[in-house]
C-alpha cells in the first residue's frame, strides 16, 4: 500500500518537474492577482494593511483552484486514470497520494511565496509568518475539496467554470478562518484558534474527501 503511494507521489512529482512551467504559471498568477488589487484600491498603506490578508488569501484560493485541472485531466485524457481505477490498491489511497503530490507541486509554492506578497501590503513580520503557516494548514483542504470538484467535472465541457462554481462556496470557511488568522496577528492578538480550526478542517477533509473523490471518479467512468 505504502509503496504504491510512494510510487504515485514520485510519478506525479516527476511529471510536475518535467512540466515546471505549469508550476511557475500558477505562482505567477498568484502574484499578479494579488498585485492587481492595490492598483484598483490605491496605494494608501493603512487601507492596504487592513485588506491585505483577505486579498492574499483570495488570490491563493484562485491560484490553487486553477491548478486543480492538472490533477486528473491529463491522466483522464491518456488513459492512465483508467488503470488507477483498476489498480490492486484501493482508489482512495491512490487519490490521497495524487492529492499530496498535487499539493506539493501546486500549493506549496504558493505558501512559500505568500510572505513576499504580504510585504506588498505592509504586513508585519509575525503576520507574514502566520500567513505562511495558515496557508500551509489551509491549502490541504483546498486541494482535497478541489479534488472532489475536479473528479466530478471530469471530461465535462465548460469544466473550468463549472469547477469554480462547485468548489468556491465550499472554500468559504477556509478563506474566512485563514484571513482571520492573519488579521488577528496583525492586530497583535493570538491566531491560535484559527490555525487550529484550519488544521481541523484539513484533517476532516483528509478523512472524507478521498471517499467522495473515488466515488466521483468511478461515476465518471461508468
Amino acid at each position: 500500500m505504502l509503496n504504491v503511494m510512494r510510487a504515485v507521489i514520485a510519478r506525479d512529482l516527476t511529471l510536475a518537474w518535467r512540466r515546471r512551467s505549469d508550476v511557475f504559471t500558477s505562482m505567477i498568477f498568484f502574484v499578479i492577482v494579488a498585485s492587481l488589487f492595490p492598483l484598483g484600491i490605491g496605494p494608501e498603506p493603512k487601507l492596504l494593511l487592513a485588506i491585505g490578508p483577505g486579498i492574499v488569501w483570495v488570490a491563493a484560493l484562485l491560484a490553487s483552484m486553477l491548478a486543480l485541472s492538472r490533477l486528473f485531466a491529463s491522466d483522464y485524457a491518456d488513459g492512465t486514470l483508467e488503470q488507477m481505477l483498476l489498480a490492486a490498491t484501493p482508489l482512495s489511497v491512490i487519490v490521497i497520494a495524487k492529492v499530496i503530490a498535487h499539493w506539493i507541486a501546486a500549493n506549496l509554492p504558493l505558501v512559500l511565496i505568500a510572505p513576499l506578497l504580504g510585504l506588498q501590503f505592509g504586513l508585519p513580520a509575525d503576520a507574514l509568518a502566520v500567513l505562511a503557516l495558515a496557508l500551509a494548514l489551509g491549502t490541504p483542504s483546498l486541494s482535497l475539496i478541489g479534488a472532489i470538484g475536479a473528479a466530478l467535472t471530469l471530461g465535462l465541457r465548460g469544466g473550468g467554470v463549472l469547477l469554480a462554481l462547485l468548489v468556491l462556496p465550499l472554500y468559504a470557511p477556509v478563506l474566512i478562518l485563514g484571513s482571520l488568522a492573519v488579521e488577528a496577528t496583525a492586530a497583535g492578538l493570538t491566531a491560535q484558534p484559527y490555525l487550529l480550526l484550519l488544521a481541523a478542517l484539513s484533517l476532516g477533509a483528509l478523512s472524507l474527501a478521498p471517499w467522495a473523490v473515488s466515488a466521483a471518479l468511478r461515476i465518471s467512468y461508468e
Partner: protein
Amino acid sequence: MLEVINLTSARGERTLFRNVSFKLDASGLLHVAGTNGSGKTSLLRILCGLGAADAGEVRWRGEPIHSVREAYWREGVYLGHANALKDDLSAIENLLMACTLAGRPASDGDAREALHAFGLAACSHLPVRALSQGQKRRSALARLALSTQARLWILDEPFSALDVAAVAHLEKLIVAYLDGGGSVIFTTHQDAAISARITQRIDLDKASVAAC
C-alpha cells in the same frame, strides 16, 4: 473463473446488447466479435469493472466483481484503446508504474527485457511522446510480458497498429499465457493466427455465444 449472467447494456435510447451469458475458465480464449458500435468496448469495460451494466451480473470466482473489487483487479489486466502512457515519462518509467499499480512491482531488468522483446530496447529511455504510434502500442503491450501471474487478460484491439514482428511476438505471449492457465478476452478486426486457439466467440451483432 469468470462467469457472466444475462448482461444487458444500453447507450441512451439504444440497447447495445441483451442477455449476454458465458463462462470462461483457465486457458480459455474468448473472442468478442461485432461491427463497430455494437458495444464490444462497452462489454469489455463492464467485464473489467469499469462500466456498469443495466442488468445482469459479472462474477469472478463465484463472487460479484463489485464486492471483490481490488482482489479481482489484482488478478486482471485491462488494456483498452488508450495506451495508458504518460507522454512525459519514458517507456520504462511507464511500464514500472503500471506494474506497481497492478500490485506486481517489476525490477528494472525485467522491464527492460520486456521492452527489448517488443523491439523497443533502443528507445526505452526516450519520453513516450517521441515514439511512433506503433512503438507506443508496443510499449503498452510490453506490460503483458510482466503480467503472467494475472489470471485474466482483457485486451481491446491488441493487434491494431502493430507490425508483423510485433503481432507474432504478441501471439507468442498470449499462447504462452494460455498454456500457463491464464484466460484471455480480446477483440480484433484482423484475422490473426491466434484465432486457432479461440475456445469461445461472442458475436454482439447477433448476441449469440458460440463455442468454437
